[in-house]
């Protein structure tokens, strides 16, 4: 039904475009001067035909279920049902009206199912009537405006401008959505677990919070010492540190080489090849780390008499470092190439060798940009998920030994939220709290990094 109505509105929109344009031609044939190109008459009529109808249509789709539910459940008010019970009754009603109900049918539910069906059919038919009358009214209005040959280009363009503006709000809406989805669960979480315990506690053991009888009331003392996030934060930064130990030297040196030394031919081939590393999905890196690098390190360690976990931080961090190489190399390459040639020439004129010029002149000049690119790399390392989930452990050890397994914020979020989640469970909320801290940390890093890079760019423009 909705689909038919939708298609109908779209078709009407197209038809009214042609009618509008035709009207413009008839006006033209009476030797009157048009106020805009004929197609603007068409657009004008089409917009007036479709847009108000669509607005009503979508508002209806949003509010109809809620209103119907309220009306159906109205019969049950004053009978002392809890919210959950009412929801259950409503679900049963809907199932019965679809003919999919399997349980025992009580007269009450049968009555409300009938009411539900009749309400739905009333809603459907009134929706069609209202949408159609809106279309008729708005088209009549617009047609009158066209016939009197009033301006059409300005309103159409204003409308388009509004559409463009609304689209540009999408980015803000997404950010708001992120904050919105994180903040409520996080606040609920901190109602049960004190912020202090979360930030300074050293035991992370969320599985403990899950093993509880649902009939028991929430007892905050049960969760003491289960949600201390220090091992998680430490693990996150530790693995990011290992990754940067791999990525910074290799990425920076290849960036410098590509920018300063490489012939155009080498550059032409080496640069895209290195950038392939950035295009490989992270789950593939994770598989590689878990299947190849982890066991390889373990064997290597055993042959040297070291105890190496198969899911060591070193394997995850190392592979993550490989993933970050292209970010650092291409960003620092850009930054170094944008250092003005005059600085180089000055240094060469003083007799400096190429490497001396790079180390003493170009590198200091490019430093802010390079720092920015490294910060972006760090933010990526902290937010990286799949490599850690697959290659590093899931138990949160507080350790600084790269050969043991550690866990990270992202890995814990996945571990907690994989499978079914019960909202309202402190364990689920803990994942959102971790997500919030991840969002805040990366946000700060990104803002600082983007600022630094932007400042740097302005300096040499």
């Amino acid at each position: 039904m909705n689909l038919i109505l939708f298609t109908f509105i779209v078709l009407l929109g197209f038809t009214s475009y042609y009618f509008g344009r035709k009207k413009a031609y008839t006006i033209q044939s009476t030797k009157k001067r048009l106020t805009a190109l004929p197609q603007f008459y068409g657009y004008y009529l089409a917009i007036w035909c479709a847009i108000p109808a669509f607005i009503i249509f979508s508002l209806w789709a949003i509010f109809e279920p809620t209103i119907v539910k309220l009306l159906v459940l109205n019969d049950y008010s004053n009978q002392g049902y809890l919210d959950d019970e009412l929801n259950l009754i409503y679900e049963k009603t809907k199932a019965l009206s679809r003919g999919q109900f399997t349980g025992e049918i009580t007269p009450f539910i049968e009555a409300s199912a009938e009411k539900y069906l009749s309400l739905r059919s009333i809603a459907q038919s009134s929706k069609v009537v209202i949408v159609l009358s809106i279309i008729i009214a708005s088209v009549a209005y617009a047609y009158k405006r066209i016939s009197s040959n009033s301006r059409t280009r300005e309103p159409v363009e204003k409308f388009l401008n509004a559409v463009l503006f609304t689209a540009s709000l999408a980015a803000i809406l997404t950010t708001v959505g992120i904050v919105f989805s994180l903040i409520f669960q996080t606040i609920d979480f901190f109602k049960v677990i004190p912020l202090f315990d979360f930030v300074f506690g050293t035991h992370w053991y969320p599985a403990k919070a899950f093993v509880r009888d649902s009939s028991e009331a929430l007892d905050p003392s049960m969760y003491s010492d289960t949600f201390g996030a220090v091992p998680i934060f430490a693990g996150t930064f530790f693995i990011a540190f290992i990754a940067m130990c791999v990525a910074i030297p290799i990425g920076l040196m290849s960036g410098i080489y590509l920018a300063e030394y490489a012939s155009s031919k080498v550059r032409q081939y080496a640069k895209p090849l290195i950038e392939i590393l950035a295009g490989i999905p992270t789950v593939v890196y994770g598989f590689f780390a878990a299947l190849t690098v982890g066991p390889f390190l373990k064997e290597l360690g055993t042959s040297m008499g070291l105890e190496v976990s198969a899911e060591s931080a070193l394997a995850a961090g190392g592979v993550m470092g490989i993933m970050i190489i292209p970010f650092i190399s291409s960003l620092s390459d850009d930054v170094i190439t944008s250092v003005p040639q005059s600085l180089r020439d000055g240094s060469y004129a003083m007799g400096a060798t190429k490497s001396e010029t790079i180390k003493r002149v170009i590198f200091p000049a490019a430093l802010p940009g390079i720092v920015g690119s490294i910060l972006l790399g760090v933010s990526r390392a902290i937010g990286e998920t799949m490599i850690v989930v697959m290659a590093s452990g899931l138990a949160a050890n507080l350790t600084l030994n790269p050969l043991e397994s550690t866990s990270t914020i992202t890995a814990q979020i996945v571990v907690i939220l994989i499978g079914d989640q019960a909202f309202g469970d402190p364990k689920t909320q803990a994942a959102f709290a971790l997500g919030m801290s991840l969002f805040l940390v990366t946000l700060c890093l990104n803002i600082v990094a983007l600022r630094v890079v932007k400042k740097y760019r302005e300096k040499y423009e």
Partner: protein
Amino acid sequence: MNKNKEQLLNKRYKAEQRFRLYGQSAIFMALLFLTIFIFKIFSTGYSAFQKTWLIVPVNFDAELMMLDENPTKQDIEDADYYEIALQSMWNLDPNANEDQQNQLKRMVSYFFEREIKQELLKDPNLLGKTKEVYLTASDDLDQVFKGNYPRDLPEDQRRVSDYQLKIFDQLVANGNVESKFNISFFTNADSREAELAGIASSFMGSIFSILVCLMIAFPVAVLAAIYLEEFAPKNRFTDFIEVNINNLAAVPSIVFGLLGLGVLLAIFQLPRSTPLVGGITLSLMTLPTIIIAARASLKAVPPSIREAALAMGASRMQTTMHHTVPLSMPGTLSGTIIGLAQALGETAPLILIGMVAFVNTIPGSPMDPAASLPVQIYIWAESAERGFVEKVSACIMVLLSFLIIMNLFAQIIRHKFEKKWS
């Protein structure tokens, strides 16, 4: 004094050479990683495109199948194939005891009944006769045949018994084991049995997610880019939007997963595990990428084009829509494809919105539960069975080839259609 100078100069030149060497070795290391990586994936994955079949004589005994004389097509469809399927496996070793008979049965996939049925449906005249039928070997025997199975392990540590190996070796010696191209890898949905598992369900899941993502992200991003580049006044609000976009481009993907879970599933009550939700989540992620690309290519259109259109009396909207936007399309499209390629490889947000559920049917619409290719890689990589390792690599090969095709496509669009302004 002179000698000293020379020494110093030599030292400086050596330092120069060392530095150069560092740079070269950094590039070499990066390329080495890439090579190892691709080599490893290919060397473990190529064998998954082959599948091992046991050729077993099957006696289509009408009596055992509970069929009367001259059965109709429907009768053949409904007949009982389990008995003859069992018998044909047991006949491989007529002297087998009960335990060994069980082991014989487990040498083929649990699909063997259906494979025998297909054979008879193809040719109903086989009834009452004996024919050699291709049966899918169990995943362990598949690995044995491909030489990936550690046969020298003690018997209690492997899932293939000595007895099964003996029978299998006999079959190999008689030429009754054959390796053929693994079509079912592309046509089957996921399965708990490695020998039957395929990528069809996750592939369709990926396609649907990407389509949803494209349909949402592309129009919104292009419109937003047009506004920001062509119409937006320079003020604090526009700056704020810009900061937002740049930030979103660097937000970890898992946070978008939390957004999908907390808003799309919990508040809007959209169906869990579906490509619809996956696509919406991915579209929010690719939005900034496409906006940035579209803005860059709008910026690359020289102002003279706009000035010429305005001078001819076009309105600003007409100038933009008729001239600037069409000229910027190649760049925008190639940016969009690159953004979609990123979305195609994304795993973490999809796991959070439940696209990691076990799905053994092929989804027919974005509203059906599905996995996606990267999530399938994750699911298989986490399962302990040996047969899945090569499947993971093969799935990675499929995914990577799609990414390569998309990126090549983006390159071609850019080079063929983009106008060079000089």
